[in-house]
């Protein structure tokens, strides 16, 4: 679209030449003018036309001069132009500049822009420019614009002078409605001044940067939407104008906002995660980590960014890390336990779940979730230690230790198995009461039934059935929780040997009693009788001494029997 304003500047000059009767002097100049020039008399007859006009209308000069000007006007515009001419001749105010359709000799229509000045002798001078190509271009543009899937706006003087169907759709305004609105008033307040300032500069034909940007605007019904605008300057209908193409990106913006929210959620999740999250690049250098991971190793995040994971690993696990990193490079996920060295030198154990990262099929690093299990590990070690201790105590205990649950043995140490002469398998198959001698069973079971939690019960000595032998024992025990259920924990003391020793001791005492007291008793008896029969005082004294000696022996034996000690 070219500007037609400059050629029309010559119209008043031409008028002066005509009026000053210097016409003949400049006639040749007019003849060669690139602008079509005609002089029309009051009666509408063309008295002068130049070559350019002849080209525009396609008539030879001989068929123009002396003809009524409407001969060269399309049927649709004839009445309007005749009307303008008549009124102009009467001195009325009619448009001096407008477009009309010229009817060529070959019947084709040309679009002509005309500027007319009334001359003093009731004649008119008109300059005509063929704008057919521009009109065609404009039509082509409008047709393209109407089918375009982007909104197109053209603005001049602060108003939108053209917008396509798509622009109507996204703004909600009709073409007529939008003509009355300053385009910047459609823009959301905070962008309004910038849009107005840039728009005005474009309308003046200035090259304004940036040419593309995203702007929020209000639709006719007040909804806020976003559009991506591409701006430029053009000449529209002969005047500088701004042109904008716009794509409605509201949904993209909303998606972006949603994604941003989502990203924020993920960021929060990562940051608030109790598990250490770490991302390293293809060289194993840390490119991202969360606070949890950094702090679990006693570092600040910034201290670890850029450092190789291998620098943090406990030396003894370095090879293991290398093997794992190699797996990631081969695209394999992995879950493994590894030890890192914290800033303070403490060895910390982690369970690492690692996954390789790819971009355009190229390995770019790995993402890992690192769970600090140091405390758990220590606790496990403590449990193992205490279990070992407990096992050692249990296994080396001189007492039989057992647990009965639901009438069955669920645990028995070696000593217990040894006492009752069974192995682990056979003990678990029998009812515990079957180990108690039938004569003692009722009494012992009664005692067990009185057992309560944390309240010790003790049995008297009772007999245990140890295969084909009988052993003696006592049990101390209490109810406990074992694997979530009530159970009886018992400690069996094997007193069989003590009982045997006791028996031997008893027999010894009995024998001592039998073999010592009877002769002593007999000796004392006879001495006493003999004393009564003899008369010699000396003999009596001797018998008395014998009796005393026997009584001394008797006292010794009595002390052995009663106290187990040898003294008088």
């Amino acid at each position, binding site marked *: 679209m070219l500007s037609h304003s400059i050629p029309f500047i010559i119209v008043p000059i031409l008028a002066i030449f005509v009026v000053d009767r210097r016409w003949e002097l400049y006639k040749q100049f007019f003849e060669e003018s690139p602008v079509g020039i005609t002089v029309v008399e009051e009666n509408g007859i063309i008295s002068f036309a130049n070559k350019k006009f002849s080209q525009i209308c396609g008539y030879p000069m001989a068929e123009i001069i002396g003809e009524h000007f409407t001969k060269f006007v399309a049927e649709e515009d004839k009445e309007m132009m005749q009307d303008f001419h008549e009124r102009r001749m009467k001195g009325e105010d009619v448009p001096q500049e407008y477009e009309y359709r010229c009817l060529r000799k070959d019947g084709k229509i040309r679009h002509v822009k005309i500027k007319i000045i009334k001359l003093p002798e009731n004649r008119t001078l008109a300059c005509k420019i063929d704008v057919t190509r521009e009109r065609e271009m404009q039509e082509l543009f409008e047709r393209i614009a109407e089918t375009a899937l982007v909104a197109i706006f053209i603005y001049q003087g602060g108003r939108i002078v053209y917008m396509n169907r798509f622009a109507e759709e996204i703004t909600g305004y009709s073409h007529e409605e939008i003509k009355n609105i300053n385009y910047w008033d459609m823009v959301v307040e905070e962008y309004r001044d910038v849009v107005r300032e840039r728009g005005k500069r474009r309308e003046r034909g200035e090259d304004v940067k940036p040419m593309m940007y995203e702007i929020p605007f209000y639709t006719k019904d007040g909804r806020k939407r976003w559009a991506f605008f591409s701006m430029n300057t053009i000449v529209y209908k002969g005047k500088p104008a701004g042109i904008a193409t716009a794509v409605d990106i509201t949904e993209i913006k909303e998606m972006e906002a949603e994604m941003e929210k989502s990203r924020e959620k993920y960021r929060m999740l990562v940051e608030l995660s109790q598990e250490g999250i770490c991302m390293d690049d293809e060289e194993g250098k840390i490119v991202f980590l969360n606070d949890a991971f950094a702090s679990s190793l006693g570092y600040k995040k910034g201290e670890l960014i850029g450092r190789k994971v291998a620098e943090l690993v406990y030396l003894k696990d370095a090879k293991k890390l290398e093997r794992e990193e190699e797996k990631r490079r081969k695209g394999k996920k992995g879950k493994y336990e590894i030890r890192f060295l914290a800033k303070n030198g403490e060895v910390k154990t982690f369970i690492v779940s690692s996954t390789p990262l790819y971009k355009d099929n190229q390995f770019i690093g790995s993402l890992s979730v690192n769970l600090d299990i140091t405390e758990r590990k220590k606790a496990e070690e403590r449990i193992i230690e205490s279990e070992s201790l407990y096992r050692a105590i249990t296994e080396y205990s001189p007492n039989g230790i057992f647990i009965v649950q639901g009438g069955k043995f669920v645990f028995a140490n070696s000593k217990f198995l040894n006492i009752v002469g069974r192995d682990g398998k056979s003990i678990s198959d029998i009812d515990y009461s079957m180990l108690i001698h039938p004569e003692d069973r009722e009494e012992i079971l009664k005692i067990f039934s009185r057992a309560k939690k944390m309240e010790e019960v003790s049995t008297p000595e009772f007999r245990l059935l140890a295969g084909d032998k009988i052993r003696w024992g006592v049990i101390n025990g209490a109810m406990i929780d074992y694997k979530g259920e009530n159970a009886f924990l018992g400690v069996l003391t094997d007193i069989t040997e003590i009982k045997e020793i006791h028996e031997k001791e008893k027999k010894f005492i*009995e024998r001592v009693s039998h073999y010592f007291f009877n002769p002593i*008793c*007999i000796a004392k008896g006879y001495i006493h*009788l003999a004393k009564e029969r003899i008369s010699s005082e000396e003999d009596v004294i001797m018998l008395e001494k014998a009796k005393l000696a026997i009584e001394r022996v*008797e006292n010794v034996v*009595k002390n052995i029997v*009663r106290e187990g000690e040898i003294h008088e």
Partner: protein
Amino acid sequence: MNNVLLIVEDEADMQDLMKKYIEKAGLGIEIYSAFSGEDGIEKYKELMEKGKKPDLVIMDLKMPGIDGVEATRRIMKIDKNATIYGFTAFFDTDWSERLMAAGAKKIIPRYLGFDGLVKELKEFFGK
């Protein structure tokens, strides 16, 4: 009618001394001797059959054959009203308890000697 005493004791010297001391004490009781548990039971039955049921049996514990406990148990079976005193050196062993459990009424420790035994008999026979 004299009181009847049956002494069950395997040692002859003990039998001899017990008789001598009882006679010396002048308790006026008839004394019968048995030298084993089995002998004691038979004597008890025999005396019962003769209408001379022993008023008291002095029972030793340790004897060849059946011991004093078993002999006491069997006599008690024959005569649930029998009165049996243990006179034994096993005074501080569970034999004493077993003898009492078998039906003996008292244990006279042997270390009290024959005077001690006589004192107990006087008390029993009310003399």
